[in-house]
């Protein structure tokens, strides 16, 4: 089997309290391991605060992971020097959740798109313009967008610009952090289609972060379900939707409101809130909200077990995960 483009092992990130703020260490992600094979899309889902962004940024070393290794093309990027890393950055790009915050309000679209090329000293000015225009075309934006500012575009268009910026550098890996969450439904689908299309056309490898299981389904090959910084379940997407094994995954799926008023409501509503990652429950972190929690759940950190080929779950209650 081919070596995966991205291979994450034992990734952990703890945020230490700084300056003013008291409080204990925030265990944002704990011992996370997964692979992203070349040309595939891996989805990362979970509720707010579950550590999706932290993983996404650690993987690109936009924040320094506390421990663990991140192999990109076989190189452990956590060990690179600042200069080496800067060179690597060309081949790994990030797409942001918020299309408003991720584009500088004071730069024209042209400046935004050529920024990366300039930083990486790619080509001459003319060539950079060329590449930026090509990227703009690839996301279906008119060329006259070049001289305008971000605020003159709608949310969907802005997200396209964000995508174009990532594409302009010709990366191998893209980490897309909730690229459609902030968009209207009608636009969401446009962007998902676009990303899917680009991914196939350019053979991109992608880590696709979302809190919306429904969106992830269309674009991802594999889905990782995250809860409080731990992986609950990993499965190929068909399997996950057809046969979710972890109680959390199932709760998540059932909480999605169905746009069909006639459908009988058999919702399973989770009680309570996500515990604080500064003070996570012992054992299985989900046990405080889990309808199936048993006594031993508090004692053992459930290991990630393979339940069928490529399908892993971290739950010791084999009896209920049917």
């Amino acid at each position, binding site marked *: 089997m081919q070596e995966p483009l991205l291979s994450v092992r034992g990734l952990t990130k703890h945020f230490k309290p700084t300056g003013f703020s008291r409080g204990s260490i925030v265990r944002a992600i704990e011992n996370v391991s997964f692979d992203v094979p070349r040309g595939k899309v891996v989805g990362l889902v979970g509720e707010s605060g579950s550590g999706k962004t932290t993983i996404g940024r650690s993987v690109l070393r936009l924040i320094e992971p506390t421990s663990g290794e991140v192999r990109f093309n076989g190189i452990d990027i956590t060990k690179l020097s600042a200069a080496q890393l800067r060179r690597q950055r060309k081949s790994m790009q990030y797409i942001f959740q918020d299309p408003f915050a991720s584009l500088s309000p004071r730069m024209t679209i042209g400046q935004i798109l050529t920024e990366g090329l*300039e*930083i990486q000293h790619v080509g001459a000015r003319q060539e950079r313009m060329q590449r930026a225009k090509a990227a703009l075309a690839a996301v*279906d934006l008119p060329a006259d967008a070049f*001289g305008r*500012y971000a605020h*003159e575009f709608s949310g969907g268009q802005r997200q396209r610009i964000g995508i174009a910026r990532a594409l302009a550098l010709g990366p191998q890996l893209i980490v897309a952090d909730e690229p459609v969450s902030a968009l209207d439904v009608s636009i969401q689908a446009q962007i998902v289609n676009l990303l899917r299309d680009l991914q196939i056309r350019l053979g991109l490898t992608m880590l696709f972060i979302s809190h919306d299981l429904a969106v992830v389904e269309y674009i991802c090959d594999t889905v990782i379900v995250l809860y409080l910084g731990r992986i609950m379940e990993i499965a190929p997407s068909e399997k996950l939707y057809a046969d979710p094994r972890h109680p959390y995954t199932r709760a998540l799926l059932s909480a999605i409101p169905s746009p069909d008023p006639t459908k009988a409501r058999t919702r399973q509503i989770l009680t309570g809130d996500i515990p604080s990652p500064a003070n996570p429950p012992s054992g299985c972190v989900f046990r405080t909200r889990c309808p199936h929690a048993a006594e031993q759940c508090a004692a053992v950190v459930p290991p990630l077990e393979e339940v069928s080929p490529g399908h892993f779950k971290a739950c010791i209650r084999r009896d209920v995960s049917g």
Partner: protein
Amino acid sequence: MSAAVAVPGSSQGPTARALGRFVTNRLALAGLVVLAAILIAILTYPLWWTYTPNQIDLRALNKGPSASHWFGTDGVGRDVFARLMQGGRISLLVAVTSVAVSLVIGFLVGAVSAFSGGLADGAIMRLVDLAMTLPPVILLLVLASIVGTGIVPTIAVISLLSWPVLSRMVRARLLELRERDFVVAARGMGAGMGHLLFRHGLPNCIDILVVYATLQIANAILLEAGLSFLGLGIAPPEASWGNMLNAARSTSVLEQYVWQWMFPGAALVITVLAINFVGDGLRDAFDPRSDLQ
């Protein structure tokens, strides 16, 4: 496919549009007109004004405003109007240059501190704290001996005194900016310090810099006045607005010869107000988002 949301004037370039925004701001325009009038008067006065600033006339001391001396004469019979004009040249030159220099220092120190973070940040900020704790009189005293009088030393002294506050403000702003997505994006593309400083830091500090600059201009002119107490600043009899205001230290000038300090005082206030309005206008004009309002 879909067209961008059209905004009036979006067909012009960014500079033209900034200009467009500026000219629609009435207060800013008024400020600009006043400022331009002052500048033109200051620059051209030798061409149309009979008196020169240092021409003494011991027979016409302390004369009030009249047809020949619009703003009266001072304690050695020099024409107050001519001195006001000449003083304007010096004061504005000193103020504008020193503000520019302290803007550069303050911005660079604050921005480098914010973007480098960690130990470097701590060390730089402690130095800034130290600079702020030091009473300015002492610094002035030393600088007085090292640099002496004249325009360049004055500019140097004023610049050196004023940057720490600015660098704190810049740092605070950029610490927040550093975590913003578009800056993270730039770092994600491998941006180094220089890029972050000038492509992101600078444009996003414009408002701070403009507000600081407008307030500091007044301050610099006043500081220059204060310097002459310590044998610094602009050497007499060269006129500056600060020097002229200083004349009010004498009770008789303060009470009896009000024109000797009222006019420079008024000139200072009017200039500062005009600069402030222009500054506000510029800040808005530089902000592409203000179209939306």
